[in-house]
């Protein structure tokens, strides 16, 4: 059954295109695949997704990228979580960490014991029991240790980076491994009249490019998946009303945080992502609720550094393709769907698509069973992220703008409504293996946005209240003491992955 190499063409060279290219040339052998990427320098990459999730490290490891090298070349910093300010209610602040809250004891999950103590007069901030949150609050960073008994093993980390530098980095990496890049634009997509498969692409130069497999990384336009194959887009704007963003970089801030910050505003939310040389900022908003001018002035009035450019506008629509893999075309990245960067899921969703494409790697004739399985997995991932994002908007008591009132009153998916009801009633969080966001993530958002549970699992009554409270105090102290022994985030980045001095000039305060 050994066959000729599969001919693959990737259309579009943003983060999705270059991640796909790097994975294909990094993991598959030239006897298995020949990869060509077509992109145009005239078409700018979106590149607002500058914060990532810990899963990205698996991707980098898989294709063989050295972390410190990658961090140096992308001005990267570390990320332990996201701080949410003014979500839920004004004046609130919580961190959604990459890590656990406390430990199970006597078969009882931490937060049930915490709830029992709280309902019995021992109120405490749940953040104090999360190593990653406390480290974030103190701007500290170090790598987690392996010993599962150690308190500083209970977290994970990701990166903030310049996504366009990451794409360039992957481009260099891929081209060094034999990837053929073609500068140019696609003029026409030709379908096979009988099978409906994509047969070839015609470039503006007149060249015709044939291939076995076409990967659409062309972004929102969906050059193949949308324009040629007419795969419908399922619109989720009624749940996630934001549809525009303005992005602006500022000078590096004194506050060099190992976390992303998301601040809720009247018409959406503002992001703040510290990089080594500058800070990335932006305002994600709903054009139905505020104007572009209002958004721009709000953004520019709320920066903690000097702006380095004019705000750059981006337009989008939340939702996903009903089918990401149709015939011999696989849409990856924004061509397959979009969810706002509130939980830094964009690169993760791209990664999931790539990894599963590799697991289901087709032969020249695509077996529909492979595509079905791919679509099932991708759909599940999108649905899980969608519900988690809606939760942030829906659970609020803000009365200062129509957006927040709308989100509080809107109909939400049944899957989310049931989840919220069980959490509120008894702190129950279902565990699932497939799809993003484990129980600590849900816990942090529920509690952080003012929905601490009214009950707890009855097994928490098996322990005496004194034992529970004593354990809470001990855990809190252990976390605090160990975090104080960590290096500061800025020192750590400087020692581990500082960019070369020449390129760091712009970062000087």
């Amino acid at each position, binding site marked *: 059954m050994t066959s000729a190499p599969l001919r693959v063409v990737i259309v579009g060279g943003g983060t999705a295109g270059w991640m796909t290219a790097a994975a294909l040339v990094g993991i598959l052998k030239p006897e298995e695949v020949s990869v060509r990427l077509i992109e145009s320098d005239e078409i700018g990459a979106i590149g607002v997704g500058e914060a990532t999730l810990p899963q990205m490290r698996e991707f980098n490891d898989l294709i063989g990228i050295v972390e410190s090298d990658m961090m140096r070349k992308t001005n990267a910093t570390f990320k332990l979580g996201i701080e949410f300010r003014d979500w839920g209610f004004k004046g609130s602040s919580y961190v959604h960490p990459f890590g656990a809250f406390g430990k199970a004891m006597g078969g009882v999950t931490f937060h049930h014991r915490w709830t029992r103590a709280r309902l019995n007069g021992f109120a405490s901030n749940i953040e104090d029991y999360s190593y990653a949150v406390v480290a974030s609050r103190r701007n500290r960073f170090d790598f987690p240790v392996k010993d599962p008994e150690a308190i500083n093993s209970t977290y994970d980390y990701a990166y903030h980076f310049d996504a366009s530098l990451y794409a360039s980095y992957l481009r260099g990496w891929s081209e060094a491994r034999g990837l053929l890049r073609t500068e140019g634009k696609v003029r026409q997509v030709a379908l096979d009249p009988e099978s409906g498969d994509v047969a070839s692409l015609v470039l503006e130069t007149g060249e015709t490019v044939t291939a076995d497999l076409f990967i659409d990384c062309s972004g929102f336009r969906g050059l193949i998946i949308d324009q040629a194959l007419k795969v419908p887009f399922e619109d989720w704007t009624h749940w996630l009303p934001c549809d525009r963003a303005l992005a602006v970089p500022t000078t590096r801030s004194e506050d060099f945080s190992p976390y992303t910050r998301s601040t809720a505003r009247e018409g959406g939310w503002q992001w703040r992502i510290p990089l080594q040389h500058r800070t990335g900022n932006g305002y994600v908003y709903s054009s139905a609720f505020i104007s572009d001018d209002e958004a721009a002035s709000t953004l520019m009035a709320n920066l903690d550094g000097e702006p380095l450019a004019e705000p750059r506008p981006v337009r989008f629509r939340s939702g996903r393709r009903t089918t990401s893999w149709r015939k011999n075309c696989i849409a990856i990245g924004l061509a397959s769907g979009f969810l706002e960067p509130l939980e830094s899921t964009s690169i993760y969703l791209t990664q999931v698509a790539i990894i599963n494409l590799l697991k289901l790697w087709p032969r020249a004739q695509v077996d529909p069973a492979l595509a079905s399985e791919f679509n099932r997995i991708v759909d599940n991932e999108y649905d899980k992220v969608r519900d988690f994002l809606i939760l942030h908007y829906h659970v609020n008591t803000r009365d200062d703008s129509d957006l927040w009132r709308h989100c509080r009153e809107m109909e939400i998916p049944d899957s989310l409504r*049931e989840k919220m009801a069980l959490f509120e009633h008894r702190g*129950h969080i279902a565990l699932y293996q497939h799809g993003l966001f484990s129980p600590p993530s849900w816990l942090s958002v529920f509690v952080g946005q003012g929905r601490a549970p009214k009950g707890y699992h*009855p097994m928490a009554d098996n322990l005496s209240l004194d034992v529970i409270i004593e354990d809470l105090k001990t855990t809190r102290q252990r976390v605090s003491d160990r975090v104080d022994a960590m290096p500061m985030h800025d020192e750590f980045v400087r020692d581990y992955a500082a960019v070369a001095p020449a390129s760091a000039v712009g970062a000087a305060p």
Partner: protein
Amino acid sequence: MTAVGGIRSVVVVGRDAAAWLSALTLQRAFGRTGLKVSVVAMPSLLQATDVYAALPSLAGLHALLGLGDVEVLGATSGVPFLGQRFADWNRDIPAFLHAYDMLRVGIDDVDFVHFWVKARAEGLKVAYEDFALGSVAAKQGRTVIDRNGFVGEAPIEAGYTLDAVGYVALIRRRAIQAGVSVVEDAVIGIDRHGDRIAAVITSDDQRVEADLFIDASGAEAVLSRGQSGVFDSWRELFGVDRLLSASAKALRPLPAFSQIAAFEAGWIGLYPLKDRTGVVAAWDSREMSDDTLINRLSTETGLSLEGECRVTGFEPGMRPAWSGNCVAVGEAAVALEPLDAVQLQLTHLGLSQLVALFPVSAEAMPEAQAYNAGLAAFVLNVRDFQLAHYRLNGRVGEGFWDRARSAPVPTGLEARIRLFAARGKIAQFDEESFQPQSWTASFLGHGLIPSSYDPRVDRISPEDQMARFRSLLGKVAEDVRAMPSVDSQFGAGA
């Protein structure tokens, strides 16, 4: 110390494993909080011939119940087994073993099955199962658990064949020791208020009240029948409607697997115990009468039966288990034929969910919806695992089996089969009782050979691949040699 409005009392109405496992589980999990657990014990439906074949995961429930292997096996003439042998399900291919391997064997991150598919196409004659530690160990009569309860290091798990009467007696004894109270009586009335049960009335006119009721009465479903949800029958999917329980002499030496052999009207299972062999038949009454089946049992099994045979009617399906303040556990909630050692698993799944979602308020139980949905997802995957045997049978020309092959297949199973046929990959869901290696063993065993394999397999040269195969076979043989024989540990002489 129970939270205000919490559950203070549970009454289990029922019999046999479902009732006593429910009572003991709840007593162990919540007894210290002051929860009172009592059982209205209906007359047992078990007879001396009955056996339970249980999946390895039963050990997880036993751990929660404070039960060890030595105690369980000792009280039940029990024998651990490493898998089940499916014979005669497909005419043209040999019997296969579904063993409980814990690890997926791979080469460079690629599952071994892909290498095997390629090698087979190139002429390899060694069966897939001969590369799997569990099935080789099972065929050679080995065990991972010894008679002292010591568990060996081999990455395979053992299921349990248990004498049903002895098992129920053990669980009942432990429940009573743990503080569960018992009323031996029949339920003659139910005091319902809307969808809630206030009390059950026993035959001597006692009102037994509780905050929560467990219906563990078996197919009778005395508390649940006719309540909120209808029983969703799977008669259309499965042909079997008769079950027989019988017993024969012990097998010498003791095998390390149960045997599930297909015959023209269904299947016959042999379950080795220390002092006898449990015999179960499941078949379609349209194809064969009870008498004919009983007369043919000795010829089909090659064993002479001892004692009574009992035949019962059977209908597969499930109903929403939790309605109001009553949770149906075991066969009162879900009925599947005893194929693939799933009987106690269905009870175990319900109890695990019930412990996770044990209500916190006697007044409002919003847990019901999540419980029912979660249990159904698990059960449907178990059902599909069973159904795959029927769907993929190869007994062409026999009415029962031809119907089984062409009967409608749920879309989830159809997609799993298609994906495996295309690429040797098992679609994975959150609510699985059977791991991918079990699905793989079953699919391949029934002759579903993938038409393509992971392209990364082609990176390894044929010589290198053969060397790896030899080394894998050598390692399996070596690991098996290090395991004790099940007969030496649990046989008559042990």
